[in-house]
């Protein structure tokens, strides 16, 4: 294989040529500072406005409700820390889940160190949150519920609409990290009673280093970056114009034809899932069988470790990722895999294959050809694996 088969779309995606094309003039020709009075500045302000309109439209929001940030991480930080500190007179309790992205989880942990209380809701074996749990966790002093729309590792899609309805009924703010969901499932913030929503361009064929927070009009929000009065004083720093233009275009494209794209992705994904489950024993699919992102698959292969698997796949031209600790240099494997109940040793042997538009059936078939051999080779090296005893010698 000369070409690389890229199956790591949940990590990041390439910037689409038509997106890049819209960005290019803003590097070298229309480069003014949008805050400037002169015509160079005004041109860029127009582009900023257009990107804001496109982003708002994709979410059924109002342009004034869109705040551009440096990415999903900053948007999550702003949503959680910004609302918590702005609403602390109303209460100091936050509800989130145990499978959020670190950008949300660590924001909550930061708040815990600063006088807030956080409830981390458990999930079931598929990674699903029970809306009833959310409802029961709400207390007098609850000010914010932050639950991701879809999980970045196992792809499980949460009952966002139900949670939104509960939040509204109880008068609690509801934030959702939709970084993985945008372009994969429709996100209508009005219809779903979402008060704050995080997105990031580079997960949907936009550029890296730019994201957005939708914050419903009237939501009290403190800025978390200190400096100029950009973004109506909600986010300081010279606007990253080319990237913002790219985000606008990418989100516009990503939220078109979702169903057609998903159909294709789902077919490929299901081919991959059933192929792997039927050809590799001691393997499980992580995440929900149907309530999952169309492009996401996530497996655990017993007796082997994820990074070794990734390296082996890479040697065969397949780019993937893992929830193994050894990919990050820490010792604990993915908090998401632990939260759905996997024992550490099985969580370590996980593999995430996330598909995108450009993947083909041939590529999937190639993966199905090489993956079983790779798993077999690693198992043969593993002291945990004993063919004779049916493999199950670990505890």
């Amino acid at each position: 294989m000369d070409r690389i088969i890229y199956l790591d779309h949940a990590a990041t995606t390439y910037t689409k040529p038509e997106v890049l094309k819209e960005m290019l003039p803003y590097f070298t020709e229309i480069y003014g500072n949008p805050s400037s009075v002169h015509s160079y500045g005004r041109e860029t302000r127009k582009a900023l406005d257009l990107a804001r309109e496109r982003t708002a439209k994709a979410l059924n929001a109002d342009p004034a409700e869109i705040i551009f940030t440096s990415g999903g991480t900053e948007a999550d930080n702003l949503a959680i820390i910004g609302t918590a500190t702005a609403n602390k007179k109303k209460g100091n309790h936050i509800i989130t889940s145990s499978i959020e992205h670190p950008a949300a989880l660590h924001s909550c942990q930061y708040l815990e160190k600063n006088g807030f209380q956080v409830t981390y809701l458990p999930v079931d074996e598929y990674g699903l949150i029970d809306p009833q749990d959310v409802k029961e966790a709400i207390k007098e002093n609850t000010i914010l519920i932050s639950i991701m729309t879809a999980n970045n590792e196992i792809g499980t899609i949460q009952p966002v609409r139900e949670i939104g309805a509960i939040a509204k009924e109880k008068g609690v703010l509801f934030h959702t990290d939709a970084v993985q969901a945008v372009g994969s499932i429709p996100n209508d913030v009005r219809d779903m009673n979402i008060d704050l929503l995080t997105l990031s361009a580079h997960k949907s064929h936009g550029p890296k280093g730019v994201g957005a927070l939708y914050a419903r009009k009237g939501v009290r929000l403190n800025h978390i970056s200190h400096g100029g009065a950009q973004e109506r004083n909600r986010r300081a720093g010279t606007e990253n114009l080319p990237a913002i233009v790219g985000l606008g275009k990418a989100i516009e494209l990503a939220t078109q034809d979702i169903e057609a794209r998903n159909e294709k992705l789902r077919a490929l994904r299901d081919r991959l899932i059933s192929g792997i489950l039927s050809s590799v024993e001691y393997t499980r699919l992580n995440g929900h069988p149907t309530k999952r992102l169309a492009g996401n698959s996530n497996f655990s292969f017993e007796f082997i470790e994820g990074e070794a698997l990734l390296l082996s796949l890479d040697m065969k031209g397949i780019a993937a990722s893992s929830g193994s600790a050894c990919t990050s240099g820490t010792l604990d494997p993915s908090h998401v895999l632990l939260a759905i109940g996997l024992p550490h040793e099985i969580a370590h042997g996980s593999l995430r294959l996330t598909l995108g538009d450009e993947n083909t059936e041939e590529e999937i078939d190639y993966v199905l050809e090489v993956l079983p051999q790779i798993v077999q080779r690693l198992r043969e090296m593993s002291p945990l694996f004993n063919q004779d005893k049916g493999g199950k010698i670990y505890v």
Partner: protein
Amino acid sequence: MYSEKVMDHFMNPRNVGEIKDADGIGEVGNARCGDIMKVYIKVENDIITDVKFKTFGCGAAIATSSISTELIKGKSIDEALKITNKSVAEALDGLPPVKMHCSMLAEDCIKAAIEDYRKKHLKTEVNTSAKESVE
């Protein structure tokens, strides 16, 4: 990220396997942390004549297992004990900082196997004399 040497030892690990009648067996690490290494040695006249390993772990763990078995094969016990995580990493043309703990695994495991050998060896002697005295 990894040197060519690491990738070579990962893709073509030397001395993979088990020795049924090993003189010493070392096992370190645990599945919780994502790496377990098991080393089997055969010893004759204080020389490690054969060595095999099995490893559950990342690329660096497998490569350090492989190289460390190469490093001690044919060596005397005393020489083998001189192995350090640094010498293992150097023999692989270096390891990324976050992976240095893998070279610890190899050092510890080799030493555990030798200790096991010595214990058994000693035990055998003790047992022998015990047997003698019983008989």
